[in-house]
Structure formats: C-alpha cells, structure tokens
C-alpha cells in the first residue's frame, strides 16, 4: 500500500467543509507555520524537502521561492495555477473538488512564506463548479479566522481570490496566466524578466501548481527532511497520477514514486491492467505534451533496467528512448489504438490552443495538423513523414513559450517510435481507413538495443 499524504482524507464524510477538515487535523500546518516559524524557515523547509513543481516542468519549488525579489514597499503575490487543461491530466480537479481546504491550507502557509497578502487561484473556466466549491471553502476559512486580517493572532493578513479563466490552455503557462489575471489577452510574456522579478502588475510573483502548494502542508507538518525521505533520489514526496485510457481502473492515484511503471499499470491497487484483456501498445506517461513511448520502452529503459514512476526514471534515455513525468497525466493505449490518429488528435488540440503570438507555433501547429489529417485519412505521401519531422524540428525551441515544444514533442516521438505505422498509413490507405487502428506489433516484446 502506497503512502498517501494528500488524498488520505479525501473520502471522509464532509471533508469538503471546514468543520470536518479541521476535525481531521486540518490547518495544523497553518498554526505551526504562523505561530512557530519565520517565512524564511518555511522556504528553507520546502527547499530541504526537495519538492519539485508538479505542474509539468519539475522545477524545485523551494528554489523557485527563493528567487522571488523582495524590493521595499512593493507587494508580492502568490498565484495558484489551477488552469489544468492538459489532455489526460485531471489530478488538480480531484484535489480541489474533494479537498478544497487542503489547497487553502497550503496557500495560506505559502503566502506567509512568500509575504503575499493577496493570493490568487487562477482556475480554468470549465471548472465552474469547482470555483464555487473553492469560494465556499474560502468563506468558511474566513469565518473561522484562517483568512482575512490577523490570522490566528499572528499579525499576518491574507486574502485568497478565485479568478476564473475563460477556457484557454495557454493560460496555464505562467506568464500567460499572469497576463490573463491582469485582464489582458492571455499571451505569454517574453522572458526575462521572470515572474519572480516582475509578475502580476509588475510585482514579484510566484506561480505554483495546485498540487505543489497542497504538498506544502505535509512538508510543514512532518518537516522537510522527513518528507525528503519519501520517494527516491530527487523525486521526493508523493505524486498524484491521473491515469486514463484503456485501463481497468482509470482515476487519480497517489504514488510515492518508488513503484515501477509495470506495477502501476498492472497491479490491482492502481490501474488494474489493460481493459478487455488487450495488450499494452503505448503510453503517454505525463500528459499529452510529453513524448509517447512504445510498450517495450515504457516498462524497461533502453539500458534494460526497470522503469519506475519518478522524474528521473521516466526521463531516462532522454527523448531518444525516454519521456517525462510531466504533469502526471498517464494515458495508456492498448493494441487497438492508432498512433497516427492519436497524434492527429493531439496536433489538433495544440493548433486550437496556440495563442498565435509567435510564428513557428502559430503556423507550424496548423500545418502539422493538416498533414496528420491527410495521413490519417489515407491521402498522405511518404514524404509527409519527413516533412512532419522537419516542421516539428523547426518549432521546437524556437518559440516564446513551451507550447511550441509541447506541440512538437508528441509528433516527434510518434514518428521516432512508430514510423512504420505512419508508413503503413501511406502504403495501405484503404486498409488504414477501414480499420481505423494501427499496427499491433508494438505490443509484442521486442528486443531493445542497448544504448552506447
């Protein structure tokens, strides 16, 4: 049984409301932090814990906090990024829906650590009901003296506001989120300056993912060093994984990053195996923008070692034979799924969500989508595959924000690992159209060449 730090109390009756949450030991970290600890000590604890940003990039949260500029007389802000729109990722939704007070608790402690008196939760517009849940929770916390002026007599004032987005994936990028929060068009800013120097209204700002901020609560409760003992290597603590696709038990799971990918997919505690007795063909282990991996590379690294569910192991081998932890959106594809169709769907998503600010992403995503549509519908040519490769190569790394990379990586990985399926779509267009699924042989155990 894996260790649960965040979701332990998720199924307690009435945990969504303050009373039950407090009865179950909630808001202990707020008491501890505000009464016993200095803001610097909290930042130090988070640093010691080795907590990595749960939004996708995996940047150490404590380090991010220590970058925040502290000019005299300028307010600082903490913004919670709840604009969870990555296809396949729905962990924050679960957390906010069932444990809104856990997020608030983390927000209060983090706001205290960063000196933010006005803290914002930027929530995606589609999560309309969750925004209401959060607002109710904020009202309850305020009524019980956990928010507002002079929290618990410590002299620290903090307000939390919920800001609804208008349905744009790009607003999950931190500078686009800041622009949107300011009421502007959600275009990513050009960095530098980084938000830690000039963020919301040109004030120093820290933007963190929901899960990152919620994880601050156990860190304060148990201490950074204890927290760092959970997990393995630089992947400390627990991680929420939202598993979906062709598995028996889709859902949100909390893992402590020591289990193997194979165990995660096949054990009854987690995904419960591939649905309908099919075989595993491929998997996107960290949300739609990370590279897809075929079954053989997913369960074992190119070196032949077992692949584990943590930051290092999933990215072992780089993009040539690895992937990324990303935001934890674990999408499993069985042998009947067509990779070309899957890639087309993702390309369509990124084309739709590109902000249109910089040219490689604006034009390239649309072009890739059209070519993939053509391949999928049996009108493709052999040269299209190389053309796709060329387009993604010229988008990646040349854009303002990571959306360009996120659009390029799935296409690159699909061609890298499933090239013959693309070729099959070109050579057997009628067959490809009729069957609507690709080649199944990726599910077969193939000998993986040892790198190096």
């Amino acid at each position, binding site marked *: 049984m894996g260790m649960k730090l965040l979701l332990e109390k998720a199924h307690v009756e009435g945990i969504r409301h303050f009373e039950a949450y407090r009865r179950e030991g909630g808001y202990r970290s707020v008491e501890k932090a505000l009464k016993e600890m200095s803001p610097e000590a909290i930042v130090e604890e988070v640093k010691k814990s080795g907590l990595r940003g749960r939004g996708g990039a995996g940047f150490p949260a404590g380090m991010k906090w220590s970058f925040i500029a502290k000019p005299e007389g300028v307010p600082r802000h903490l913004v919670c990024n709840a604009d969870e729109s990555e296809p396949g990722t729905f962990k924050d939704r679960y957390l906010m829906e069932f444990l809104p007070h856990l997020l608030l608790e983390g927000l209060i402690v983090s706001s205290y650590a960063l000196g933010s008196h006005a803290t914002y939760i930027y929530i995606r517009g589609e999560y309309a009901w969750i925004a209401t849940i959060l607002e109710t929770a904020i009202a309850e916390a305020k009524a019980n003296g956990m928010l507002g002026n002079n929290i618990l007599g410590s002299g620290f004032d903090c307000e939390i506001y919920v800001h609804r987005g208008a349905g*744009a994936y*790009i607003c999950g990028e931190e500078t686009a989120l800041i622009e949107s929060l300011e009421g502007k*068009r959600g275009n990513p800013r*050009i960095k530098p300056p980084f938000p830690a120097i000039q963020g919301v209204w040109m004030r120093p700002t820290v933007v963190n993912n929901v899960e990152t901020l919620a994880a601050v609560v156990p860190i304060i409760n148990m201490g950074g060093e204890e927290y760092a003992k959970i997990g393995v290597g630089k992947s400390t603590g627990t991680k929420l994984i939202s598993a979906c696709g062709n598995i028996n038990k889709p859902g949100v799971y909390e893992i402590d990053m020591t289990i193997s990918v194979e165990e995660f997919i096949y054990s009854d505690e987690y995904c419960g195996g591939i649905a309908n007795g099919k075989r595993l063909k491929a998997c996107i282990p960290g949300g739609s923008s990370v590279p897809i991996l075929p079954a053989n590379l997913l369960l074992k690294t190119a070196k032949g070692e077992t692949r584990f569910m943590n930051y290092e192991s999933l990215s072992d081998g780089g993009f040539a034979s690895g992937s990324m932890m990303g935001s934890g959106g674990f999408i499993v594809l069985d042998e009947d799924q067509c990779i070309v169709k899957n890639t087309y769907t993702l390309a369509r998503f990124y*084309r*739709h*969500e*590109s*902000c*249109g*600010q*910089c*040219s*490689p992403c*604006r*034009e*390239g*995503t*649309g*072009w890739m989508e*059209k070519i993939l549509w053509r391949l999928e519908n049996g009108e493709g040519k052999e040269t299209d595959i190389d*053309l796709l490769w*060329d387009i993604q*190569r*010229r*988008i990646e*790394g*040349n*854009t*303002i924000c990571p959306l360009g990379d996120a659009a390029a990586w799935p296409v690159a990985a699909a061609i890298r690992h499933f090239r013959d399926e693309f070729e099959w779509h070109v050579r057997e267009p009628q067959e490809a159209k009729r069957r609507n699924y690709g080649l199944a042989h990726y599910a077969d155990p193939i000998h993986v060449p040892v790198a190096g």
Partner: protein
Amino acid sequence: MSEQPLLTVTIDNITVQVPAGTSILQAARKIGGDVAPPAMCVYSKLEGSGGKCRTCLVEVSKGSEKDPRPMPKLVASCRTNVMDGMEVKNITSPRVTDARAGVVEFLLINHPLDCPICDQAGECHLQDLSYEHGKEGTRYEFQRRTFKQHDLGPYIQLHMTRCILCYRCVYTADQLTNKREHGILDRGDHSEIATLIEKSLENNFIGNVIDVCPVGALTDKTFRFKNRVWFLKPENAHRECPDCCGKVTLWNRGDEVFRVTARKDEWGEVESLADGSTAWICNTCRFEKKKSSDWVIEGPRKISRHSVISQGHYEGKVGTTVPTEIFSAVHGGRNPKLLMDIHSVSEVNRPEIQLSQIAGPSTGNDFTTGKD
C-alpha cells in the same frame, strides 16, 4: 548624467561597444550589413514590441565574461540584452540560418503572395526577408487561410490574409492614441486584426499603423492601386502642422502627390527627430494634404541603393557611398580565395571603369569613351 561603461559584444567575429541595456539586435544594427538579423515584429520606437516573429533568432555562444556558458536555445535578439563579453553568432551559425529558413517558411505558408497586386510591394519587409532567406518553392500543399473582410473606415485598408501578426499596429494604437479601437481577436492561426464591432479607425494618429506595418496588411486607402512605389519619387517635405511634427516624405509622380508617409530610416522605422521624439505624422498630413502647394519641398529623399525604389532615381552622386564590406571580418580575416581574377587575363570588361561612379543609367558611351 554619469558616463555609463560600455559593454563589449562580439557578433559574428565583429566586436562593437554599446551601452548597457542595448539589445543584441541594436548592437548588430550598429555594425550593419548582413550581420544585423532580419526583424519583422520589433520596432525600436514602440515599447514592448518584438519577440514574436522569431526571424531575429541568434545563437549566443558565450553568455558573458562572468558566465561564459552558451545559451542552450536560440534567443530572440530583439529582446535579449547584451552582456559584457557576450559572443553572438548570427550568419556564422548553421543553427541560426536553419531556424531562420524555418521561420520564413512558416511566415509564408499562409501568406497569399499577391505581391503583383499589393501596394506594399517594393517596400515590404516580408518580400525582402523571403528574397534573402526563403526557398524558391513551398512544401505547403493546403489551402491558405482566409478571413472575413473587415472595413476599417475611409483611410486604412486591411488585408488580413497578408498579416504576419507582428502586433506593431496594436502597440502603435496603444502608445499613440488615447483609446485603442482595434486589436487581435481570436487565437492561434485564426487570430486576426479587427475591431470587435465593425468600426472605423478615425483617431488622428491612427494612420501611423500603415507606416509600421511590415507587410501589406494595412495600407493607405487613399493610395490604393494608384501607383507602384518604385514609379514614385520620394521627396522630403514639411509643413506647419498644429498636431504633429509635419516632417514627411511625399511620393510624387511629376507634380502629383500620390501619397504621404512618415520618414523612414534604413531599418524601415520612422525616424527620430532632433529632440529624440519620433516623427509620427497625423492623419491630416497623411491623407488630406495631397497637393504640392501644401508642402515645402526640401529635396529628394535618399533611398537605399538595394531598394527597388531607388532604381528610378539618379539624383545626387549615386554610388559614392560604397557599402561596408564585412565578408572578411565575419570570416575572421580570411578572404575567400579567388580562383582567377578575370581582369588579369582580359581587359574586355574595362576594369578601369568604376560602375558605381557612373551617374545615372549607364549607356554604351560610358564604355566607349576613352577607348581607341
């Protein structure tokens, strides 16, 4: 003001000293020639512009004297400031030329390429860019995108299909007019310049969006289809204008004034005045004053000899300024080896005649005079 220490930056093996806060692009423009990266979206007179088109990507092979690590990604030179001891590779980096070719291709896949009927042809930055960095063919085999037509009023003609979404006109309206009425609607490859509700743009300074537009997306309606720019003769002129500086360029044919624009410098940006402000002009000067008698003519305007517009003009001593040759400097002092100097074996090409010294179009007489 105290003297600021100058930073040393090396771009393509050419070292230049610039004050702190200068972007790589500005430093490269100081060197000039091919070292200056092309830029479609940045406009030094507009605050906040730049970083969007990605044509000015360069490779930073050495971050600075203090931190010599190279930057992992190509950076947008227009929005990256120089550091002391920075080393930048522009045309000497294959990565940059490859990425730039990609950006040009991206910019062109949805561009209608209707230059033959476009008023901007001849002074279009995208034309120059694709001429210098583009390929002759396209790999794009789909329909180019189209938009619903928007009418922006009696002065400004919008061709959304030509737009490259540089945002310059948005910044112009933000910074020159008190209330911006147009902007970018929608998102991704369907974003477009428009007013939300059909509205005409009538602010007195909104005409400047025509001058800042790098392509033919925003053109002068009063000049529409009247003439090609290279048939016109640009002349500097001024008038007493209550609203603006009144310093303009007239585009004449004979006595007729076809259009009035602001004065643009060699990078296609509106010039700065002596007091440091930018010579934006008002709509009255631009659209209403179309008679020679309205203006005090100062004289012909210098146009870059590379521009098609200069083809029809031979005023002054053409060609007396020889462009700076940067070839050997960029190659670290190495000159390409000439296989054979044709002049060493034949004088048939009359090497003693300097072509650039011939005033006006050359005739057969230029080559026969002085010959036996």
